[in-house]
């Protein structure tokens, strides 16, 4: 949500419409690609250290039409989203429970605090020992890594619901057991979704890191293999595929969030180009 001061600065005149604004926002990325291309093609950067941008796009296209990319990409995206889904369910459940129950908070709180900054991918070798190489190990890495941001944001969201909202619901006959569903979770939606957005970014990082350590199929393995063999254009082509998927996923989540949170105060500040 573009509510920051900088986002509301009148960078562009009002008559520049939505489509044009979106194109203009892609300008820095285009500039970086052109700079990259010029530096390599002109010889300022040696081709053996960095392939030119067009070679990466050609490699990406080659992998795409020859089918190799899609199978790996599908395995990666599937693992990432299933892992994220499990993390959302678990994280919201545990976070809400922590916010409403002192015992659960006392039990789970210290575990969250001590494991928060632990890089979850460092546990992959152990998971391989337990579950073997493949989907279970990669998925578990995603679940563990995505769980905490969702859990923490749900906990924070639910515990900061104003007491008068709970009181007025109780005054209108809402029983205690229905409070979470009818008041606490709806009131915490914005906070929960911001945790999910952070986790969505993490899930690709996690799955690819896990795949680079060991897997049978996955874009992380593809990137790793091409990197090992010095096929850097193809390695970067694989990375490009992940960047595109992650970007589309993030924008989709932002759109869903905007629809779900139409009622929320933050929508009032929404700029025309946000």
């Amino acid at each position: 949500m573009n509510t920051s001061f900088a986002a509301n600065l009148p960078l562009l005149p009002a008559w520049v419409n939505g489509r044009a604004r979106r194109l203009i926002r892609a300008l820095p990325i285009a500039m970086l690609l052109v700079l990259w291309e010029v530096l390599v093609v002109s010889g300022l950067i040696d081709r053996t250290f960095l392939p030119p941008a067009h070679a990466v796009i050609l490699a990406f296209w080659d992998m795409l039409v020859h089918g190799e990319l899609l199978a790996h990409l599908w395995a990666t995206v599937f693992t990432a989203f299933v892992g994220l889904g499990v993390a959302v369910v678990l994280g919201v459940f545990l976070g809400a429970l922590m916010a409403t129950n002192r015992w659960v908070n006392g039990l789970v709180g210290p575990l969250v605090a001590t494991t928060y900054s632990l890089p979850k991918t460092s546990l992959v070798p152990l998971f391989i020992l337990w579950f073997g190489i493949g989907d279970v190990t990669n998925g578990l890495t995603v679940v563990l890594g995505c769980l905490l941001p969702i859990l923490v944001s749900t906990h924070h969201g639910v515990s900061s619901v104003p007491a008068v909202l709970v009181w007025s619901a109780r005054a209108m006959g809402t029983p205690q057991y229905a409070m979470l569903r009818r008041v606490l979770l709806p009131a915490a939606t914005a906070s929960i979704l911001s945790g999910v957005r952070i986790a969505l970014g993490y899930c690709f990082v996690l799955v690819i890191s896990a795949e680079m350590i060991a897997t049978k199929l996955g874009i992380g393995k593809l990137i790793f293999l091409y990197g090992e063999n010095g096929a850097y254009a193809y390695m970067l082509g694989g990375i490009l595929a992940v960047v595109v998927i992650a970007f589309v996923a993030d924008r989709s989540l932002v759109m869903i969030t905007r629809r779900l949170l139409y009622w929320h105060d933050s929508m009032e500040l929404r700029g025309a180009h946000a």
Partner: protein
Amino acid sequence: MVSIRVRGVDKFYRARQGAVQALAGVELSVDSGEFVSLVGPSGCGKSTLLYIIGGFIAADCGSIEINGREVRGPGLDRGVVFQEYALFPWLTIQQNVAYGLEARGLSREERRATAARFVDMVGLQGFENHYPRELSGGMKQRVALARTLAYDPAILLLDEPFGALDAQTRESMQDEMLRIWLSTRKTVLMITHDVTEAVYLSQRVLVMSGRPGHIVEEFRINIDRSVTREVTMLSDDFNRVRNDIWLSVRRQLAPGAV
């Protein structure tokens, strides 16, 4: 018939330096159908008292009875209007007003019809499908009032209901409140720091002391409610009792000075 009876209520709050006493031996009763206001210096514990009567927090000592029965928690017999509206921002105006009707056991169709009637009553027809954030403060407070009136509690507990509104909106909301009370004759206990508002609306005004709060003085308001606001507020009867209550509250702020 007594509707609300409060006997010997004490309330302490834990603070960094030991316990702070908010209420000390509060005694009050409100008859069925009566409109009573509670005024007092800020921090005297009047909102705390209202929340205790509402059943949201427990008294440390003493008893609260509603129609002769001990209060053990919130109930549909008491409707509460909070100062900051406390509407559910994720529900539309229609859904907010219909919320309390579910616990009353009304069918979906009955809930919709009743909610529509009360949205009309507070003059918000056309805003049924808006969300609270799209409404002004005065409109939100109308929704809060409609939501509480819709499930028809016998008692209304109002916590500085018009405190956050601008002067003009506040006056029109007071007139609305008076009209609603005259037509429904519900039992009302209102917290306010606005003495004029208390006199304009109430049959009886109770003055609370500074912390720890207890009731120090009681004023009966005998004014004609069938006349216009202008006639009421310019009358000698109104201003005499208003001034007396104002002085009484001043004395709680600075004992001995007045």
